[in-house]
């Protein structure tokens, strides 16, 4: 059977005839090839990628002096084959407010593109033609700024509150402004359906998410997640900071599983600089990341079960999590928002008491996992609430770009630690728990099994850890000029970072492809037909952290 990426490459070269085409090294730059195609060909390209089972991993834009570059990254589950396709949007000395920067939308082909394109529209001013719903995503509706353009050098009224208070009016009448047709229909036609707002302040503690539900009685007809309430401008901030100053950002994106974000950033810059950290560093990195994965899944389990009405497991999970946090705090000094990794090494070596503490912790935790099994997994009420609910099929998963445990619960054994291995994962022995049903129960089951696999990894790492140093010493402060893409398996899915470096001390553009962004998008597919109680269960099962989505 012919190797597929040659097929797509040859198809591109012969049929589409790209304007630029570069073959690249997957290990050093993260992509197999890079092609610039004409604007009117991009839809054809996207259709061909979809036909060959590629999903849209990331879609972003870059601001250059004479044009804007819209960058598409496609990837496949079956083998590492990340491909980069770009289109150019000429600026023609115009301004974004003129509305003349346009590009075709591929949201009819890949559903995940809908949100990516809205984000590019609001940050760069590129208008995507034929987009069903092109309005702002992360910033308030009344914003007039396009922040990620290089010409935007800061908001003059930095913390002007009167502007924000004007938003209050928009918020209370927001529904009338955004959906005028529905409002008149409701007033005149006496329909049965109504709109209910879930959030942004909501007891299901996922953060500040707002879901606008269109309901008929208690049944959901339609759902629209509205995000942006936690936007903390990471990407713009990182463009004016040095690479080292960006470490705290990495700890605060997904604060529950911050170690894997540290890992991703370290892998990216080390790939770009072409350095390899010492072996002891790799083992410690994997150890702390897997411990953090356990802590993150425990927090998820506690809050998910609390959403379903079982209040007690929350306390048990948090108690276990506190033990893990004690172990990590011994070494890093932090409980939650870690920035322990450095380029080419770590901040400091692990504490001498850490490994004995872990050895004591592992058997106790295994016993607790059995308790959770009996208390929750076998409980009949729990099974009735979660089985056959919120089903995500493989086709929907491709279209929405879902990754992580939510994808593995739909029958796809895609885990970057095996598909595109980094660090010492190829030498470790662990399984990828997969389940085929794709319902809420499967996602719960996959995460509980992943906790057992993480324990296995931790046990192996402790046995094999070599002695040595934990730093490479002083590295240059700037990253060589070029484009780099790197992805790691964070607790919620595929965390990708796309770096464009112009050789200076600051990143030129650093795009964060966070897993929860695409995972949350998929609830538009899962929610219609559910009851309100199910909405909460489904939202909990996809495991999102809002600051990661809103960046």
């Amino acid at each position, binding site marked *: 059977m012919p190797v597929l990426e040659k097929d797509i490459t040859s198809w591109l070269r012969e049929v589409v005839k790209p304007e630029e085409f570069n073959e690249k090294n997957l290990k050093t730059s993260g992509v197999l090839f890079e092609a610039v195609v004409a604007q009117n060909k991009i839809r054809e390209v996207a259709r061909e990628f979809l036909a060959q089972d590629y999903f849209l991993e990331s879609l972003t834009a870059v601001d250059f002096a004479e044009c804007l570059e819209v960058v598409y990254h496609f990837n496949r589950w079956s083998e590492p084959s990340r491909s980069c396709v770009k289109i150019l949007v000429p600026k023609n000395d115009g301004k974004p407010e003129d509305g003349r920067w346009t590009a075709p939308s591929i949201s009819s082909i890949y559903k995940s593109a809908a949100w990516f394109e809205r984000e590019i529209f609001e940050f760069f001013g590129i208008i995507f033609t034929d987009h069903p719903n092109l309005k702002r995503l992360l910033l308030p509706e009344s914003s007039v700024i396009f922040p990620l353009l290089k010409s935007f050098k800061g908001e003059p009224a*930095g*913390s002007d509150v009167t502007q924000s208070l004007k938003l209050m009016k928009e918020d209370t009448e927001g529904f009338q402004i955004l959906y005028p047709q529905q409002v008149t229909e409701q007033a005149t036609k006496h329909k049965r359906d109504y709109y209910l707002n879930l959030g942004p302040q*909501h007891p299901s503690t996922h953060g500040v998410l707002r879901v606008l539900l269109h309901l008929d009685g208690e049944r959901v007809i339609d759902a629209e997640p509205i995000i942006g309430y936690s936007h903390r401008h990471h990407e*713009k901030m990182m463009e004016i900071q040095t690479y080292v100053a960006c470490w705290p950002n990495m700890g605060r994106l997904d604060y*529950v599983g911050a170690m894997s974000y540290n890992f991703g950033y370290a892998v990216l810059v080390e790939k770009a600089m072409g350095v390899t950290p010492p072996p002891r560093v790799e083992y410690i990195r994997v150890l702390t990341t897997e411990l953090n994965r356990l802590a993150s899944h425990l927090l998820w389990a506690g809050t998910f079960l609390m959403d379903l009405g079982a209040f007690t497991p929350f306390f048990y999970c948090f108690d276990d999590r506190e033990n893990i946090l004690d172990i990590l705090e011994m070494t890093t000094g932090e409980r939650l928002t870690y920035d322990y990794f450095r380029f080419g090494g770590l901040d400091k070596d692990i504490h001498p008491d850490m490994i004995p503490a872990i050895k004591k912790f592992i058997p106790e935790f295994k016993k607790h996992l059995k308790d959770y099994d009996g208390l929750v997994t076998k409980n009949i009420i729990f099974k009735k609430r979660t089985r056959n609910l919120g089903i995500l099929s493989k086709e929907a998963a491709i279209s929405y770009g879902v990754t992580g445990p939510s994808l593995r619960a739909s029958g796809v054994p895609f885990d970057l630690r095996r598909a595109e291995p980094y660090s010492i994962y190829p030498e470790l022995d662990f399984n990828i728990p997969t389940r085929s049903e794709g319902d809420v129960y499967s996602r719960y089951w996959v995460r509980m099994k992943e906790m057992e696999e993480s324990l296995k990894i931790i046990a192996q790492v402790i046995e094999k850890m070599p002695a040595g140093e934990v730093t490479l010493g002083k590295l240059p402060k700037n990253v*060589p000029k070029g484009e780099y893409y790197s992805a790691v398996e964070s607790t919620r899915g595929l965390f990708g970072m796309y770096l464009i470096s112009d050789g200076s001390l600051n990143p030129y553009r650093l795009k964060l492809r966070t897993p929860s962004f695409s995972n949350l998008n998929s609830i538009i597919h899962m929610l219609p037909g559910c009851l309100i109680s199910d909405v909460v269960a489904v939202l909990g099962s996809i495991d999102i952290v809002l600051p990661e989505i809103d960046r």
Partner: protein
Amino acid sequence: MEIKETLLTTDTQSLSPVSGVANFFKVEDVFNMARANSLWPLTFGLACCAIEFMAGGAARFDMDRFGFGVVRPSPRQADLMIVAGTISRKMVPCIKTLYDQMPAPKYVIALGGCATAGGPFKYPGQYGILEGIDKIIPVNVYVPGCPPRPEALIAGIMELQRQIKSKEVKGTMTQAVVHDSQDNRPAEYKNAISRVEFRKPPTPPAAPSPENKS
């Protein structure tokens, strides 16, 4: 920058003190003792500090021992708003609405650096966050940290309890309209570079291999 302090005490008149024959409890004292010992927080987590808030209510740190463990989801039934996390501009009207919906007497704790003054997300020319919740609602206690440990949160609430019992409850607000971001460092904004320049291979070019064109 002016700091305007508003006194948010709850008693309107005091009874004249009588000593010697009988020891009177002022009714307001009893009310304040009751209010201090029965603070009901609102479930309101915005970002990372919310996790430490949840950990504070969990089994190891157990805020319920002191009486403030009954966390109510509805603002009508809560009297303490713990603003935990960064406040984005989009969230400002929601916070103001929630604060207005809480019945008096109500208290606010700013948890963490972000709610106090913007935290690590304050940079010259920032466009997305509100630098401190005290720009729109009066804050009684500031708890610093990023994120503060749950013990720090409990210490903050106990400080609020002390303030309520001794009738020193002060709500602090800072001036709302500021024309620059409070971060005055010189900003390193760069102009857009030319794509053509960017695509040129670095000079001097090493032996060009077909795989490493940049």
